[in-house]
């Protein structure tokens, strides 16, 4: 039995009010389990659903009650089946009672582990908390929750409650939500549990830490304030970048019949003389050469050991300075957290006093740090206060590394003030910019902040794990595109764009961009530069398609000459027609992508007739040539004529556009 295995119980609300976010819940949980399959193979996971039609749990059988709670999977070691389970969670039909689910979960954990596995037991509740909690048989709800919380704490179970919040609520529901939140707060007061509120599907994906990391201190010891005073502190990493998984090199040399082949590749190093490449030098005959300008100085490791810089392990305070002296941009690395030694109340007091004083007088501390004995360098950094708002969490500091002289390149840049008038914005332009900065707001008051780093998943890793799962089913599966929820991280939210459309349009109107006419054609690459530049080696078919679309978008939005619009549309039409004419299935997909881009462009440029006429003629062609596949694709993508509602100049009514795709189906079949 592995020592570090974790037992996790997922309590998922699948009641009707949760249906809209269940896809994200499924994604979040399968991500969590997938990472466990790779990094925590011994971890155990169980799933409890509540708000279901059915009832299936031990407590019902033993004592009755606890309806609509289903144990989907008992606690056991993670495997592929559990990922399957998250492909499609059953949609529930009744309002879920999360207290019931917690009791069922608690019962399962206690029965399975008794007193063992302390501190590694975790329950994770995902709910929207809009359904009323049943009254207990005796006592109040608060008393019931308190009793449960005490049990949870006694068994060393950690709890995470993720509450999905919605902005629009009727008053009646508001009261229930308030009551439920009160109950949840009671949990966090009485046991080590925390509550996380998420406002949108994207942050739900990041609400749960899918990576399980046991925090390790990088330093334990004294923070020295002069020679007279020391404070016992522990230092942890607060942020650390989760790297793309290290994939192993694959060898296909083993015969396909060999079932036990590891397919691994070993990397070995050989050292050869530069002058005489046939001469191999054994590793122990090497010596390190250190560069000094053009010279290379050979120094043996023993020699180097004797002369190298060897600072003593210590944390020393250099002094305090105004926080305005330390600009945010100087932070060099990932961030550390300084906490007082756990259990040492006086150290906590000292840290708390310093942190609060720093906050009050706007000062920060400058430290010199050597984390480990034998470390070859020192670090200069800044401590900033991190005051805790919770009564059970002590105050602490954040620590950021600052640069040395050698790390800074001080370049001189021209002042904006010295620029010619033609480069300066005028009053109207400035106002347009002000409005854009105000309106394109990611943290509107009254609504939650979106794209908070704490709740934003890494889209690349999401994509990787998704693809990994697909590939385990089908080795040739294509890389999946980002879904709508993840797209909100890489592209501007369409809702936000729609809300601030007028501001963006005004911004467009006030500013003009054009390419520099003085530049020679050959050097003029930037504006029409391909999306990923030349550093992409695999110039495959897809790439050039993306480029074609990019080129089209760039050309059609050029403002220096109205003729560009016409030219862009004509070029695109030609390309689409070529693809369709080729009668190859793959090309139809591309053609549809191009059509989508063309349609968008024509709407933006108020040229609906160009598109509609083209689509009609294309359809005619398809009918003559019996290319049904293309039409099916268009139906699936909802690519129809541009109706009046989308472009005023259109000659097609909404009705016509709606039926256009399906109109001729009966004739064909």
């Amino acid at each position: 039995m592995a020592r570090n295995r974790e037992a996790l119980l997922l309590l998922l609300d699948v009641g009707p009010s949760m249906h809209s976010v269940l896809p994200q819940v499924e994604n979040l949980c399968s991500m969590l389990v997938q990472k466990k399959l790779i990094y925590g193979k011994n971890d155990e996971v169980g799933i409890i659903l509540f708000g279901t039609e059915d009832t299936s749990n031990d407590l019902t059988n033993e004592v009755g009650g606890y309806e609509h709670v289903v144990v989907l999977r008992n606690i056991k070691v993670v495997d592929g089946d559990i990922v399957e389970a998250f492909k499609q969670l059953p949609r529930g039909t009744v309002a879920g009672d999360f207290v019931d689910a917690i009791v069922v979960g608690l019962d399962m954990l206690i029965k399975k582990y008794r007193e063992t596995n302390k501190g590694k037991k975790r329950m994770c509740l995902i709910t929207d908390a809009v359904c009323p909690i049943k009254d207990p048989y005796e006592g109040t709800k608060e008393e019931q929750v308190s009793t449960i919380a005490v049990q949870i704490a006694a068994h060393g179970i950690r709890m995470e409650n993720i509450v999905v919040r919605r902005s629009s609520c009727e008053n009646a529901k508001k009261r229930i939500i308030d009551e439920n939140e009160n109950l949840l707060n009671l949990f966090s007061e009485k046991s080590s549990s925390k509550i996380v509120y998420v406002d949108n599907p994207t942050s739900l994906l990041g609400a749960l830490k899918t990576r399980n990391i046991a925090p390790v201190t990088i330093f334990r010891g004294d923070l020295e304030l002069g020679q007279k005073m020391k404070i016992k502190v522990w230092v942890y990493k607060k942020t650390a970048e989760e790297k793309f998984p290290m994939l192993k090199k694959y060898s296909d040399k083993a015969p396909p019949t060999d079932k036990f082949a590891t397919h691994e590749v070993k990397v070995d190093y050989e050292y050869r003389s530069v002058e005489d490449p046939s001469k191999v030098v054994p590793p122990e005959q090497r010596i390190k050469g250190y560069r000094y300008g053009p010279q290379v100085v050979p120094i043996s490791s023993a020699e180097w050991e004797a002369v190298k810089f060897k600072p003593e392990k210590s944390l020393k305070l250099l002094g305090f300075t105004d926080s305005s002296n330390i600009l945010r941009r100087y932070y060099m690395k990932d961030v550390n957290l300084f906490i007082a030694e756990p259990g040492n109340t006086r150290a906590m007091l000292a840290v708390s006093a310093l942190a609060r004083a720093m906050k009050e007088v706007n000062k920060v501390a400058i430290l010199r740090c050597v984390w480990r004995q034998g470390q070859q360098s020192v670090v200069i950094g800044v401590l900033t206060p991190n005051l805790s708002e919770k009564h059970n969490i002590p105050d602490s500091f954040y620590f950021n590394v600052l640069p040395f002289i050698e790390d800074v390149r001080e370049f001189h840049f021209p002042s904006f003030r010295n620029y010619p008038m033609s480069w300066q914005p005028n009053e109207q332009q400035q106002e347009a910019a002000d409005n854009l900065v105000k309106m394109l707001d990611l943290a509107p008051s009254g609504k939650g902040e979106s794209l908070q780093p704490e709740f934003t998943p890494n889209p690349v890793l999401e994509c990787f794990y998704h693809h990994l799962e697909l590939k385990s089913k089908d080795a040739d599966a294509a890389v999946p595109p980002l879904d709508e929820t993840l797209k909100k991280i890489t592209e501007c939210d369409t809702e936000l764009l729609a809300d601030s459309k007028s501001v963006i349009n005004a911004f467009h109107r006030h500013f003009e961009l054009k390419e520099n006419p003085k530049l020679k054609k050959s050097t003029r690459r930037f504006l029409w530069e391909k999306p990923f530049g030349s550093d992409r080696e695999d110039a495959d078919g897809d790439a050039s398609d993306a480029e074609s679309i990019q080129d089209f978008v760039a050309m059609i939005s050029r403002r220096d000459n109205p003729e560009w619009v016409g030219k862009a549309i004509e070029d695109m039409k030609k390309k689409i027609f070529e693809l369709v004419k080729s009668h190859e299935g793959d090309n139809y997909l591309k053609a549809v992508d191009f059509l989508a881009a063309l349609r968008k462009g024509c709407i933006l440029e108020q040229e609906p007739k160009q598109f509609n006429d083209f689509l009609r003629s294309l359809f005619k062609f398809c009918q003559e040539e019996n290319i049904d596949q293309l039409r099916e694709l268009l139906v699936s993508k909802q690519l129809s004529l541009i109706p009046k509602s989308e472009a005023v100049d259109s000659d097609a009514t909404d009705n016509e556009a709606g039926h256009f795709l399906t109109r001729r189906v009966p004739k064909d079949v």
Partner: protein
Amino acid sequence: MELDPDDVFRDDEDDPENELFQERESTKEYVVYLVDASPKMFSTSSSAEDQKNESHFHIVVSCIAQSLKSQIINRSYDEVAICFFNTREKKNKQDLNGVFVYTVAERDSLDRPTARFIKEFDRIDESFANDIGSQYGIVSGSHENTIYNALWVAQGLLRKGSAKTADKRILLFTNEDDPFGSIKGAAKTDMTRTTLQRAKDAQDLGISIELLPLNRPGEEFRDLIGLEGGDLALFMPSAGQKLEDMKDQMRKRMFTKRIVKRISFMIASGLSIELNSYALIRPTVPGVTTWLDSVTNRPLKTERLFICADTGALMQEPPKRFQSYKNENIIFSSAELSEIKRVSTGDLRLLGFKPLSCLKDYHNLRPSTFLFPSDKEVVGSTRIFIALHRSMLRLQRYAVAFYGNPSNPHLVALVAQDEIIINGGQLEPPGMHMIYLPYSDDIRNIEEFHSSTDVVPRATDDQVKKAAAMMKRIYLKDFSVCQFANPALQRHYAVLQALALEEDEMPDINDETLPDEEGMARPAVVKAIEEFKLSVYGEDYDEESESAGNGKVSEASKKRKAIAENAVKESANYNWADLADNGKLKDLTVQELKYYLSAHGLPLTGKKETLISRILTHMGK
């Protein structure tokens, strides 16, 4: 750059991907420092009292010496030449009067800086009068034109290498804005004309000439015979500033700005502006080491061999990677992997704005990147940038954007920075800093890790007051972020310099990062600390014993401590020096040997012989 399989030099602390965001060495740079050595440069008569008696010549020379040293650390592939004009002696290929090209043995005139070059140039102040000498070259009556000669020599030096692969520059240091002042009439116009023509010729060859004027208080430095054209006004240091600042400004201008990448910033669909990104802050690490043959000291080439673990066959670097998942090997091609990382088109996409208070201190992963607009290809970019920059500053907001860099796509914050000018020098350039934001799984909830249901202690108002009083005492008023040199790096290069010159004496490096012990020991400071200590710790507080707290200190560490203490006690029972001298160490048991090792904090691993040799090494035998 060679691959180093066991890169022991690197600290664990260092990010393995450091090299990725180091500045890319795309082009080489050839620089000629052209230093006026006329007597006027040596005059120290300064009017302001706060200025040290430092001559302009000295300022220039020390600036160059400093930049040579940082060049060794950062850009040792660049080549430099130092050339004085208005000198008594002459030394140059063209054999022109009044021009002296300075170099040392085993080094070309224009070459990479070597250890000897740096060391000797450091002492140029002492040797200059004897070996080179200062003398006005342009005097009425003679037809010598030393500026002309100097430019010619510099141009000759820069004939090396093609203008395409190298950046060629001449930096001209002088405090004379009217070099032909002593000459009258037609001779003067003639000299001006020929000098300008020479400068123009050089520029036509792709050499840029930059003028670094040194002005005296109260005097305005006029455009030197129209050498530099329009840009000068932008950089002209204002009159009357302190010498220190002048040095600073000069240092900043001696580096060329290198653009890391050109980025297109998409503000809305169809509206993309052009930005240049610069790496203003990047960790500088000691240079790469190479492997040499210890017998011949000749360089070695490292070759990677790929061996199939199943068959033992040698193979090419495999194009495919795999991840084991659900007891299966899932294979990815490199095309698939790069497609996964390609989550976004376009370089930098605006997502929206947030108030600055949303950017927390722990939202950081790596050094920031500086963004500055350019109208080079997309006219109008600068105007949009300035407008947004102003709005963001005024409304106290930062932009959130997605940077779709194919190697490492990231969510970033763009923080506008206003220009800060102090004493006529630019302290902070105007522009935006791109800060890489962490994702949800990059942030750890350490605060909650030790939380319990107990109420934790909070400082009282009085304790906070005492802490604030102490802060006032230990106050670094003029702290600037990069005032310290990295002692590890300084030591590294000082040692290398000494070893390269085969000196026996190892240089001593002053570690500037140590706290100011003297200042900390001032009575007022000590008193403030004592008061704070008393207020939070109380009367009788023993930091060591308190650390045991409520017995939470782990059993393992207690045990370790007990073993160490025991070892010290036991170890005292042996006469180690005697045992070692008589070769009796081998008669002891491993257990006994370990007493010595743990008492002296040495590693306990290895066979008996290893332990004995470790003890002997430690004793210095």
